[in-house]
């Protein structure tokens, strides 16, 4: 069966510090991968998606970036965090064929102080 991991679970960082959030998927190969941000426990904002190693599409211009150095690894980064980067970050994967339902990780709660 497939599993998706995210770490860390919670993170408190000062403004201006760097960020690195990691997501890994097990039990599948060549998945589509996604980073979302959820503010105030409501709607999801798609930040990045990737259909393959080194292939990143950005949905929202911001000070965040994403990388996919390996097939099942997806990293969200920032060189300098802003207060507005606080939120709940979710990683998800889907298959490349079929109905494309997404499977989500447990999330990372980021607080920028």
């Amino acid at each position, binding site marked *: 069966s497939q599993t998706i991991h*995210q770490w860390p679970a919670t993170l408190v960082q000062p403004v201006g510090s760097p960020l690195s959030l990691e997501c890994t998927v097990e039990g599948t190969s060549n998945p*589509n991968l*996604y980073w979302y941000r959820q503010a105030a*426990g*409501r*709607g*999801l904002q*798609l930040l990045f*998606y990737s*259909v393959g190693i080194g292939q990143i*599409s950005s949905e929202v211009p911001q000070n965040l970036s994403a990388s996919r150095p390996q097939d099942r690894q997806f990293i969200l980064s920032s060189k300098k965090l802003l207060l507005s980067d606080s939120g*709940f970050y*979710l990683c*998800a994967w*889907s298959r490349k064929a079929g*109905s*494309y*339902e*997404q*499977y*989500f*990780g*447990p*999330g990372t*709660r980021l607080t920028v102080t």
Partner: protein
Amino acid sequence: AQSVAQPEDQVNVAEGNPLTVKCTYSVSGNPYLFWYVQYPNRGLQFLLKYITGDNLVKGSYGFEAEFNKSQTSFHLKKPSALVSDSALYFCAVRDIRGFKTIFGAGTRLFVKA
């Protein structure tokens, strides 16, 4: 453009009563529709999907959804609500290119004992 709307921010229901969480959609072509559930401080969990076939789709935890093409709706239902069903529910539609999923704003369900 593909879109989904969840007209209710919150739905309140008594335990044991039937529940309905509403969703309407707008798509080009045949819709791929989904429901996801999010428990507090957790990632989203896939509940059910409609691709084709029977208009009544059954999913996890006793939930079902009714696809209505003429009303462009995909309402989530459960015959008898449980307190443990209290959560945030998202309706979603697959983007026509298949890479992305478009999520509704979410409906918070409260089930009172």
